[in-house]
């Protein structure tokens, strides 16, 4: 029996948990006085010690990123929370903003305090209009009760939070494209810096973290790093919201410790594959992670290291379950249509590669393909890997390679038709 962990989800089941009046009686904002009385360095240290990893897909150590923020810099610092959540199969951040928005706000205040930011933005996916309304109300209420604005809870710290709505581009979830978009420009990822440095918003040092990463902060400050590290594995410390969708009895989001068995998770929380069918494959962490066969799923545990050793990655923890009847060529076509539509179009290999792979796969599905086309798909995957500005194209490359290498016979059968 897997035990659920309650770092960010402990108030999800309370009625009207999104309302400040309700949630105050369940301890909302109780960590603020502790955090705002601490030295900034002690908070930074605590986050480093906790081993907290970014939950937006990359899994970077949060503490390392926070330490990149300059200490005595004349420029203002900014905190930007990434709530673009557009990765297919991923719907965890929206649980947080609709079920416990005040925990996110509390986490933002503590984070902003630690990095010395007085202005924070939440970049929210354009389609999340209804959820944004809930989040905005929470922010308004927090202002009214003195949790936001000037002299928060009477302390010498100010913070303003503004929500910025995206316009429906998946690429704006990539942090540098997000910042371009926030600056009012086209959402194009930026060239990577040569050395480790913070992100830049209008040339000012900026920290970008995922919603869930920031929402984990109050727990760590209240219970100390060791309490967080108790969950999870040596290198993947803590817990994460994992999502189930696809051919599953019960789709949903559950928080468990890293290292949990994937199959057990699927069976216990999802009630197994839909209609008692056999499991064929799982896309483990949002559509951009390479697919796992049922055999691999049996070996998989939900942590960064294990999934990497299986040639995939933990990503956003959004698992897409596929039953035995799934047509893998159709499934890949579905994904490629998405990437074809969402490539930002900057880099030649990605702009043209996403289109061409989609076109070739359509040809194969039409029965007009040949094994030459399958090889061409693999060639294209190779061209898209490691030659672009952001990791969008390499991710597509990994997806194509995993589908074809693991299910090549299904692709070949299509040609004969």
């Amino acid at each position, binding site marked *: 029996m897997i035990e659920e962990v309650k770092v960010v989800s402990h108030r999800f089941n309370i009625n009207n948990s999104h309302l400040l009046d309700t949630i105050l009686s369940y301890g909302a904002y109780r960590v603020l006085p502790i955090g705002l009385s601490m030295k900034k360095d002690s908070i930074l240290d605590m986050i480093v010690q906790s081993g907290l990893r970014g939950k937006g897909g990359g899994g970077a150590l949060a503490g390392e990123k926070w330490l990149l923020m300059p200490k005595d810099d004349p420029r203002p610092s900014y905190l930007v929370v990434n709530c673009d959540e557009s990765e297919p199969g991923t719907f965890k951040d929206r649980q947080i903003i609709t079920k416990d928005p005040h925990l996110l706000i509390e986490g933002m205040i503590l984070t902003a305090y630690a990095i010395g930011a007085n202005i924070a933005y939440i970049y929210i996916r354009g389609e999340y209009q209804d959820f944004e309304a809930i989040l905005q109300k929470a922010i308004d209420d927090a202002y009214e009760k003195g949790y936001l604005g000037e002299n928060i809870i009477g302390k010498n710290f100010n913070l303003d939070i503004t929500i910025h709505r995206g316009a429906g581009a998946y690429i704006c979830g990539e942090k540098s494209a997000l910042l371009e978009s926030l600056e009012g420009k086209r959402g194009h990822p930026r060239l990577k810096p040569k050395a480790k440095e913070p992100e830049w918003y209008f040339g000012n040092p900026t920290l970008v973290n995922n919603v869930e990463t920031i929402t984990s902060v109050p727990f760590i400050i209240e219970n100390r790093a060791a309490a967080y590290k108790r969950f999870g594995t040596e290198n993947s410390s803590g817990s994460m919201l994992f999502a189930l969708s696809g051919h599953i009895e019960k789709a949903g989001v559950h928080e468990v410790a890293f290292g949990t068995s994937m199959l057990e998770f699927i069976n216990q929380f999802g009630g197994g594959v839909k209609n008692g069918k056999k499991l064929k494959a799982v896309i483990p962490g949002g559509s951009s992670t390479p697919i796992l066969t049922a055999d691999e799923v049996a070996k998989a545990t939900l942590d960064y290291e294990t999934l990497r050793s299986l040639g995939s990655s933990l990503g956003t923890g959004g698992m897409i379950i596929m039953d035995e009847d799934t047509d893998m060529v159709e499934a890949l076509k579905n994904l490629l249509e998405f990437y074809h539509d*969402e490539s930002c*179009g*900057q880099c*030649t290999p990605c702009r043209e590669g*996403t289109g*061409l792979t989609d076109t070739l796969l359509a040809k194969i599905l039409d029965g007009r393909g040949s094994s030459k086309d399958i090889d061409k798909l693999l060639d294209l995957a190779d*061209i898209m890997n490691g*030659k672009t500005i952001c990791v969008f194209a390499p991710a597509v490359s990994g997806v194509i390679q995993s589908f074809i290498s693991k299910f090549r016979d299904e692709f070949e059968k299509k040609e004969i038709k």
Partner: protein
Amino acid sequence: MSINIKIDDTNFEVEDNSLLIDILLKNDIKIPHFCYHEALGADGNCRMCMVEIAGQKRPQIACDTFAKEGMEVFTKTASIHAVRQDILELELINHPIDCPTCDQAGECKLQDYYMDYGFYESAINSSDKIKHEKHKDLGSNVILDQERCVLCARCTRFTTDITKTHELGIIGRGDEARVTTMPNKKLDNPYAMNIVDLCPVGALTSKDFRFSQRSWLLTSSPSVCHGCDKGCNIYIDHNKLKYQDAKIYRFKPRYNKNINGHFICDEGRLSYKELEENRQYNLLSDNKVISKNIAIETLNSKINSYKNNITILVDANLYNEELEAIKSYALSIGAKIFSPLSSYMDNAFGDDWLKSSMRASNAKGIKSLSINTEITEDYTTTGLLINFNHPNPDLLSYLELVEFKTHINNEKDKEENLNLIFPLAVSSESEGTLINKNNITQYCKKVINKNSPTPTALEWILDITGDIK
């Protein structure tokens, strides 16, 4: 600080931290690229300038790689060739095959690189290629063919970062991305046509030049624009077709770090037309064509009869050598010489970049020769005025006017001008030096040789003074 790097087994001493692509370009090492441009910097979108760096797992783009001590760069390995070929193939996947009707053909980077890396079969049918707008009038004489565009963003970066006029942007994502104008905006800035030169392919063409000449038929001769005293460096692209006269088809900017960088203004660019249109070709007196001997005789007899009452005006666009000759000529016939510069001032034209309000290309030359730049109040003449193409002879009162002129100014000038008129060669048909506003002296060689050449000021002076014994 200078450091040592190795490129394809040759050692180079370069500035620490300098951009690899600049080093390669400077040393004439082949490095295909669409988006990088010295004036616009790196954007990293085309991915063509891939090189191998020892110790790096993946190929790197040279436009975003900085030289470091001991760096080993490989630009010619088989794997780099393959990568460039792959990326070029994708660049061409949706590209129309327009070369036969495309103005860029012959000076197109896509064509050049295809010859270097291409030669493969297309992976899709031409009917499956993505369709976009083929003829989009952006404004300012620039036509966009979205299908030919390789989305290098040079044009958008020019209007965003250089002119800061923000007329252009890229809309749409993935292979639907395309360049367009911002809503309710037209391309509208005095430097707009530079994007035609910046465009590495035939996506942007000049309305003025389109379909007028194939690029490989043109000869490019270095010269200097005469539009103002900035003296931007240009190429005069001209051609002499069989049985026809030499003709200028366009001006293009010529790089000069100290003057105009990579660009010129649109007005200067289009000023080539003035070198061809409304030219004064005939020697006239009383609006009748006369012979050279008679013209010179007539002039000399006028000079004799107006002794001590002669004034000479000179155009501040003439070359120093011409001005000098005219100046000594003035001295020899006892004439005063002026070049009023106020006639050339055009404050609406000037800006704080290239365009200068002083619209005479050799105003500084006039000054350096100590020719009077204004007509002093106490100076009056009622005698003979000899005007070497100065635009405003009516600044002075005179009894008689003799004109050396390059152009017929208007209809009236054509039909009713009874003066003695000597046709004068334009700048492209003459040669000499100019001094620009920053005191840089530049030489312009004679570029155009007409079938029946019009004499230059220098040639006229020689002819005329040859007669005065």
